[in-house]
């Protein structure tokens, strides 16, 4: 089976029938192939978190269906717990996910519920902590005594330890320091490459998404505005800015150079790509060693 997740006319309304009724997700249909790395972007309140929480059955869609491996996840509501092991979700606010006495027990929580025990559990916990860059010394601390960034790593480690088939990360790098972002992003990319698991990454950092995603879901006011390969999405800068989004700074720089008549490629997404494109041009001008 090539397609891991299929969303069919998915919709969600908060507070239906109340004065505060709010349509958060509106008729979203799309399919995600197994092993894809999907970026999810959209203005605040565009419905990203709501959409993600429907993927693992944390929220039940008001309209439409979520198919995981071809089966409606709500076919047997009593088995929804199993879906949560298969689709691992890291929440936007890690504090919600931390409630145990120690960081270690917090990371172990999901994996333990999934059935891991003994050495296998210990290994899963330590590997996951290592993976997210949590220092072993922090494992015995209370999660409430961690700094913002440390809490985030602990929450991510807890989900990674479950080794889910689909990993959903809701703004995992928000609040991380630049090197922490860099490390976590490359760890997630490595995890994706090694485990061939499907990853969905929600982020407000266009720079990060540009570096890692194969395809991007663009949400706007609850609707699916685009679902295209990364280069294509960031080619449509004007459209993105109408949705409250942007293209990475480096993409803008290169586009500005193109507009000024320089022969640089279109759709440059990373600093490395820009560097590679500029080197020969500068060499030709005799500006380099």
């Amino acid at each position: 089976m090539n397609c891991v997740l299929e969303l069919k006319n998915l919709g969600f309304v908060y507070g239906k029938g109340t004065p505060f009724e709010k349509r958060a997700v509106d008729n979203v249909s799309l399919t995600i192939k197994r092993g894809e790395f999907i970026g999810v972007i959209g203005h605040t309140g565009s419905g990203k978190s709501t959409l993600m929480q429907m993927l693992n059955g944390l929220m039940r869609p008001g309209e439409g269906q979520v198919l995981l491996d071809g089966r409606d996840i709500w076919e047997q509501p009593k088995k929804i717990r199993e879906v949560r092991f298969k689709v691992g979700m890291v929440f936007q606010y890690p504090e919600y996910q931390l409630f145990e006495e120690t960081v270690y027990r917090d990371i172990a929580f999901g994996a333990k519920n999934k059935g891991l025990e003994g050495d296998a559990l210990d290994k899963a916990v330590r590997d996951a902590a290592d993976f997210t860059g949590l220092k072993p010394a922090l494992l015995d601390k209370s999660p409430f005594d961690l700094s913002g960034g440390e809490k985030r790593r602990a929450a991510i480690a807890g989900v990674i330890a479950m080794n889910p088939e689909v990993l959903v990360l809701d703004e995992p790098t928000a609040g991380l320091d630049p090197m922490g972002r860099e490390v976590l992003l490359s760890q997630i990319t490595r995890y994706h490459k090694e485990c061939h698991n499907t990853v969905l990454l929600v982020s407000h950092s266009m720079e990060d998404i540009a570096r890692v995603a194969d395809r991007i879901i663009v949400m706007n006011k609850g609707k699916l505005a685009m679902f295209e390969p990364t280069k294509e999405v960031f080619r449509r800068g004007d459209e993105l800015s109408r949705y409250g989004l942007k293209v990475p700074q480096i993409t803008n720089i290169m586009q500005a150079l193109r507009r000024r008549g320089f022969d640089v490629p279109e759709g440059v997404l990373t600093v490395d790509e820009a560097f590679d494109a500029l080197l020969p041009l500068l060499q030709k001008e005799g500006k380099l060693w």
Partner: protein
Amino acid sequence: MSFISIQDVFFSYDEVEEGKPVRNAVDGVSLDIERGEFVAVIGHNGCGKSTLAKQLNAMLLPDSGKVIVDGDDTSVEEKTFDIREKVGLVLQNPDNQLVASIVEEDVAFGPENLGVAPDEIRRRVDEALKAVDMYEYRTHAPFKLSGGQKQRIAIAGILAIRPQCIVLDEPTAMLDPSGREEVISTLLRLNREQQMTVVLITHFMDEAVLADRVVVMDSGRIVTQGTPETVFSQVELLKRHRLDVPQSAELAYKLRGCGLKIDKIPLTQEDCVAMLEEAMR
């Protein structure tokens, strides 16, 4: 004397227990912030930024050393109220700050506590909500808002107090690109037009470059500070402290490594384009 003067402050969360090493979250920081200044504080996770921020409005008191706000020592209990009226702190996690069940009541909470007259409160609340572009959500419940929306309500709540200094602990961490731009330009406006002192804690280097002064922290200490130009030209030093530079500077730095002559590392998109145009013409 400076508006805010941090004098050799030490602070530790750890109880002083026998056998347990005491680690200082703030480990000897001295820093003067002038009235009307825009200061950015950057540093890796856990380096003590939030802990330092909480010293500025007496939410935490130094174990040793002093914090003086507009002449008042934060450790003098009778002054706490005055100090919080002058220095507003937007906490890192907005959930810790939202108290009421309706957005506009939440924003009104600060000024109410200060005894501001009701019609003046109304004015301030509307103004603050408009400043963060959340006016249309004024009758909603804060806990039902999206992450970025909550963040903006928390900022509005502090703006409504009209402090002389606003300290923001990663206010844009959960915002979309245009939301970030709006918050930053709101801060720049308050700073330029109303001379509000701004202390901005951020992990976004492209925000820090907009400040008058950038303070770099590591392990509870200040490792360097200066104008954005001086701080962000020290790329290696920044990387050593787990930090980074904006993409424009990163590109320039890499090209300089290959021999391109660059007098000034460009910190913004515009400067970078100008620099490259110059180099390739």
